[in-house]
């Protein structure tokens, strides 16, 4: 007998025996009648059985990794009634097994204790109307609350505080031009529109919460980073905008204009340069901590006590709203350098009494022009690259007469002319 014939006969006989002798039918979906005991109070269903990936994310998370699913998703502080066992059982009202929590459910103005840990209030964003208008990311939080993508404001929380990636598509002005005569504007205009996309690509995991030092301002604000680090190349000094990160480098000694010295060290108008970074250090020096030097003076001062003393940051803090913002303050140059401020404009000691110190120039810029232009109005003169170091410089044009004819491009380009 051929093996194949034997196999067919054998299968046929076995099938016949099964059909004739078996009294059971076979269930299509076995175990659908094997119900899990839910007699106990709280939740008896194993969330991780269906959500193991989220558990794996939490296992590698700096925050919340020690929480159970129930700690967040059946949080009792909201008044939500969940289904649970016990005698009698609770049927659930707003939610059955779980809800999607708002981050602010725990991080509200009172904070909350979860699994023995205190969840701190999310400063400013936990306040009415998400705090003051100087919180730089307030618009993002407000839009997130409108958005249906996630509950509450979570979109905003996720993009900064977790490994959830984000793409930011910015649109803003391309450049401005203005004329000054005797420190007064004789013309001003903007030109063009710039589109800029910043990508902060992470693993995408919403349940991997980042330590605060991993929240990198320069990823979402890559245009600012590029403006401060790369800009537009030029011989000697590059065109770098947003803040005066370097200045004229004709001198080499500590009493001259290199990028490392105070201004001038030990002199009568002693003024350390707060936000200058030597060229060699720019790529790494422009980081979140650098951003905080201006955009959260209070935080920077508390984390850099030596600088706090050197730069009078306690007083500078009082010039800002940095104690009232979440992470960053929307500010302008006048915030620290206006009249009456701790870091009011002083003259270049090499050009004493010839700058715009003692005038209302900085305050006038603030009151007369949109905030978005103000940094570049200042940078039109304070970019190192537009401050000529050679014989073509006519110092008196700016330093005595207060005349300027500026065209400057926005971040990340920073290209500028001042003739």
């Amino acid at each position, binding site marked *: 007998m051929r093996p194949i014939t034997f196999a067919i006969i054998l299968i046929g006989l076995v099938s016949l025996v099964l059909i004739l002798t078996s009294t059971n039918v076979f*269930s299509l979906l076995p*175990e659908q009648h*094997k119900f899990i005991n839910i007699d106990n109070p709280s939740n008896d269903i194993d969330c991780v059985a269906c959500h193991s990936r989220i558990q794996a994310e939490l296992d590698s998370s700096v925050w919340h990794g020690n929480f159970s699913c129930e700690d967040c998703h059946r949080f009792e502080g909201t008044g939500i009634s969940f289904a649970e066992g016990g005698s009698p059982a609770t049927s659930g009202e*707003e939610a*059955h097994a779980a809800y*999607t929590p708002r981050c602010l459910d725990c991080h509200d103005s009172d904070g909350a204790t979860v699994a023995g840990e205190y969840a701190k209030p999310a400063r400013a964003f936990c306040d009415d109307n998400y705090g003051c208008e100087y919180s730089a990311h307030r618009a993002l939080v407000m839009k997130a609350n409108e958005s249906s*993508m996630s509950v509450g404001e979570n979109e905003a929380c996720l993009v900064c505080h977790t490994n959830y990636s*984000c793409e930011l598509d910015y649109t803003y002005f391309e450049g401005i031009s203005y004329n000054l005569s005797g420190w007064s504007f004789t013309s001003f205009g903007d030109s063009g529109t710039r589109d800029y996309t910043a990508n902060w690509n992470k693993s995408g995991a919403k349940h991997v919460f980042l330590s605060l030092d991993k929240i990198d301002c320069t990823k979402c604000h890559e245009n600012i980073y590029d403006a401060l680090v790369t800009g537009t190349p030029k011989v000697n000094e590059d065109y770098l905008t947003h803040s005066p990160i370097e200045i004229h480098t004709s001198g080499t000694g500590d009493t001259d204009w290199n990028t490392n010295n105070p201004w001038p060290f030990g002199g009568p108008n002693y003024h350390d340069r707060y936000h200058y970074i030597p060229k060699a250090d720019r790529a790494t020096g422009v980081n979140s901590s650098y951003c905080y030097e201006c955009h959260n003076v209070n935080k920077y001062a508390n984390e850099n006590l030596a600088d706090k003393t050197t730069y009078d940051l306690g007083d500078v803090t009082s010039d800002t709203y940095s104690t009232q913002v979440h992470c960053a303050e929307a500010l302008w140059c006048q915030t620290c350098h206006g009249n009456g401020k701790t870091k009011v404009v002083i003259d270049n000691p090499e050009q004493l009494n010839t700058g715009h110190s003692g005038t209302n120039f900085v305050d006038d810029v603030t009151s007369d022009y*949109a905030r978005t232009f103000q940094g570049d109005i200042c940078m039109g003169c304070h970019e190192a690259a537009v401050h000529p170091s050679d014989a073509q410089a006519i110092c008196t044009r700016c330093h005595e007469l207060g005349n300027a004819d500026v065209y400057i491009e926005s971040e990340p380009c920073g290209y500028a002319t001042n003739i």
Partner: protein
Amino acid sequence: MINLKQMFLIIAVLSAIAVAMTHTVTLFSGQHSWYDLSGSGSNVPCLKCHEDIGDELIAGGVHTSIDCECCHRTSKMVGYAASEAGQAEPGQGAHSASTEECMLCHNGRRMPETNFTHYYLNSSSCLQCHNPVPAILAAAAGGFGLTPDLCDTGTKAAHRSFVLEAMIADDSLMAGANEACIACHTTIKANISFNVSTKAKITVNNVYNDSYSYWAVTEITPTNYIPYTEVKE
């Protein structure tokens, strides 16, 4: 090896036995032993065919002491084959049993507003649910907005879309929302295909004129979806 003569001999003997027998051989023995259907309830032993399900039920958890008919012959909307006062009722929507929604019992409604009926149950099965009398009422599956409790809004329920989709799916595998109920409340195996966003796309426009400006976040949309599968064992 049996030769031809021996084979003929065997066939002859078997034929003689067959001729001499007073009974024929029944291929399916017991097929003429009919169940008495005159009593209340089903009277047909479901477990004869569904022993595996019986084993699952008694393995632990809930529903361990409830007969098959307490779930599968309790819909007022069906009309099962039954016997009432010696009068046979042929059945309408179903003969012996129907596949019922979990929510038939767990809907939080009290009779008579529920579709649940005791009519087709065996009178001896009362104590399975009503012990002590008259207490047991199946716990309502609240939190999905499916019960009459006005507080049951389900607006915060993380799995609500799962339940609703189970209810409306055209290719419905099970009755009502049962796919969702079964997936969580039993040990059934499940493959769950997720498609999740890993990135937010945020559109930010600077709105300005010469003297005034603000940043407007105009859109936040999920993007960069990735699929993955969870296997519930």
